[in-house]
């Protein structure tokens, strides 16, 4: 049985990968978070009737619940898109064997059914059906309702996977999906259409006429086939290897960097690296997402009054792109790391270049966020302080932690099956750096002296920059210590 073999191979692959073995601590943390979420959801499910009764004492809880389901699935779609890892397989090792291509594709598709996200909502839906639906409707209706929710969750799963897969091959489709979502949010916000009532209408119909379960079923089948045909056409080694590209001229714009000596050359090379790989290029396309956060949040009164939240947003906006670069700064070079080690005479300069490029990215991000001053001078002030923190503290910390990631990142591998570092682990490992300034701010907030807190955050960055030389010396020592470990990891295929 081919499926069984594939499953065994994958289990072995993940068990034997150095990544898994080294990241046990991180995996335990993630496991803990998942457990916590399970608990939350279970509590929510068990008390859903009470909660709805408290919040909307005059309305029918079924109406209310059905009205928000669509929001829930929209949120779920976004979360899945960001967090859920794509099922992957090292396809080249199987293509030349007498295995049906469709079998491989079905296997890949079916594997995503194991994603825990598919089963989490049941923790809310099942108690809801028992406590709220059952008193009014028959067991059969409740059962069909639960089943429909489950099918929609699965359809959502395949939709998220499809959009994520397209992100690297056709970023347009991801863009269209994002725009569609935004349009719906805006239409609802300006009360042109009411998503709530649409949702209520649809899901109430399901309770009245159980036959409508056919819609979720068809949706699931459709999304499944979408993935199936997409992957099937990609299953040629030709498609797998990245298409031969004409020498791009985009980096020509940066040719003047050459005149800035060795560091300029190194930065130019990094720009080429980013621009000539789909994987890294798609991160650049994500820039508006990072920088546009303010547009979404500064509008709302509840956020504007929460300084801690504003600090977090400031760090995220001015540092998000820098973080994407620094987090894997050495892994990006895994393809030619041996060249780096055996040819670069001066690792000081090498690290200096990484630092300069990183703070340049942060500074450009900061400059782009300056117009947010329209939302108040406070925003500009906070963003300036967080920018200082980013270039003077976060930058060094990320350079330091980057020396620990020794997983090969095969950028020239086909984009379709290459999604290293796009999952939750990526974000979780650096979360403490984002929380640190909040921790610093906390006592000032308690003393009701927020401005002092902002200034201290900025001062931290300023201090970091003042001690640039000794810090870089330390980082150089760390790099030299870790370089063997990184190099041996980068040499490993997978």
């Amino acid at each position: 049985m081919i499926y069984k073999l594939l499953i065994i191979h994958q289990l072995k692959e993940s068990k034997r990968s150095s990544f898994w073995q080294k990241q046990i601590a991180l995996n335990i943390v993630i496991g803990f978070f998942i457990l916590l979420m399970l608990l939350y959801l279970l509590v929510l499910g068990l008390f859903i009737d009470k909660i709805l009764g408290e919040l909307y004492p005059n309305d029918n809880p079924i109406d209310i619940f059905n009205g928000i389901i669509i929001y829930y699935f929209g949120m779920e779609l976004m979360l899945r898109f960001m967090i859920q890892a794509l099922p992957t397989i090292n396809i080249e090792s199987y293509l030349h064997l007498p295995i049906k291509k469709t079998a491989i594709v079905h296997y890949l598709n079916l594997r995503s059914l194991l994603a825990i996200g598919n089963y989490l909502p049941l923790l809310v839906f099942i108690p809801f059906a028992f406590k709220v639906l059952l008193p009014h409707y028959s067991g059969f209706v409740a059962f069909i309702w639960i089943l429909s929710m489950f099918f929609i969750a699965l359809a959502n799963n395949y939709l998220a996977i499809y959009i994520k897969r397209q992100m690297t091959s056709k970023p347009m489709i991801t863009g269209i999906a994002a725009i569609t979502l935004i349009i719906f949010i805006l239409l609802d916000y300006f009360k042109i259409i009411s998503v709530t009532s649409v949702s209520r209408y649809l899901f109430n119909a399901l309770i009245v006429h159980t036959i409508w379960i056919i819609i979720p079923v068809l949706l699931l089948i459709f999304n499944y086939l979408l993935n199936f045909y997409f992957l099937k056409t990609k299953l040629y080694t030709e498609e797998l290897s990245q298409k031969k590209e004409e020498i791009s001229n985009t980096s020509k714009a940066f040719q003047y960097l050459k005149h800035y000596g060795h560091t300029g050359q190194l930065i130019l090379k990094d720009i080429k690296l980013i621009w000539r790989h789909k994987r890294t290029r798609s991160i650049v396309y994500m820039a508006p997402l990072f920088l546009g956060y303010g547009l979404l949040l500064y509008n709302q009164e509840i956020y504007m009054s929460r300084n801690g939240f504003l600090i977090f947003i400031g760090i995220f906006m001015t540092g998000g792109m820098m973080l994407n670069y620094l987090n894997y700064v050495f892994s990006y070079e895994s393809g030619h790391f041996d060249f780096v080690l055996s040819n670069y005479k001066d690792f000081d300069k090498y690290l200096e270049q990484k630092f300069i490029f990183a703070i340049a990215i942060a500074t450009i991000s900061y400059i782009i966020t300056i117009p947010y001053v329209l939302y108040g001078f406070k925003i500009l002030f906070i963003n300036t302080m967080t920018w200082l923190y980013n270039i003077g503290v976060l930058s060094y910390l990320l350079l330091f932690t980057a020396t620990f990631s020794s997983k090969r990142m095969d950028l020239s591998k086909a984009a379709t099956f290459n999604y290293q570092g796009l999952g939750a682990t990526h974000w979780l490992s650096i979360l403490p750096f984002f929380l640190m300034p909040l921790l610093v701010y906390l006592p000032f907030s308690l003393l009701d002296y927020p401005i002092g807190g902002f200034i201290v955050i900025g001062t931290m960055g300023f201090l970091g920059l003042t001690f640039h030389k000794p810090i870089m010396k330390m980082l150089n020592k760390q790099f030299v210590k870790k370089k063997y470990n990184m190099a041996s990891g980068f040499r490993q295929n997978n």
Partner: protein
Amino acid sequence: MIEAINLTKVYSGTKVLDIKDLKIGKGEAFGLVGNNGAGKTTFFRLILDLIKADTGMVLSNGKNVKGLNDWKYYTGSHLDDGFLIDFLSPEEYFEFVADVHKLSKGDLEEFYINFKDFFNNEILDKKKYIRDFSSGNKQKIGIAAALMAKPEIVILDEPFNSLDPTTQIRLKNLLNKLKEEKQLSMLISSHDLNHITEVCNRIVILEKGKIVQDKPTNENTLKELTEYFAV
């Protein structure tokens, strides 16, 4: 030029390299042969400070290579594709290597003239990235880059691999010329006994990490080597 003292490397309990004392002199063409897993690449990586030795050390010009960067000024190397920056075009790559070694524009132009034959019109002005070249042409790019800065020592791991016959012969001639004119020290490994006996004046056989034979090349070397490996 290069000296390995008590050099050992252990991978998961097995000693993959164990060299008591090995000296490679200036202008010497040192050939390393041995079956897969004999420790050839491991030895080269240790010389280039790419992996950590478990005991012992490698001296280059009397200085430990570990932690020092002096040797990088006079050592050129190409072991595998990890030495290429594959998202650059060959021209960009050469320009970058030239910058790393602080060569001038004139040096780079001279390099292009010297390697014109070797490239055989297959490398330059192709308007593609290195990653899109065939493995033979990638090999050419790597070897050329290793020789670009006119090093005193060059380390090549199986340089004849995947080269076409014409280029193999050209590479042999090029290496022989550099050896005679510039007193270049060469460390070359190969599975091709023919080529290596033609280029090297000293052949060392490695077996399971140990030196089992170390002889200067003469007219009988090829025969002896063939006999040794014909088990």
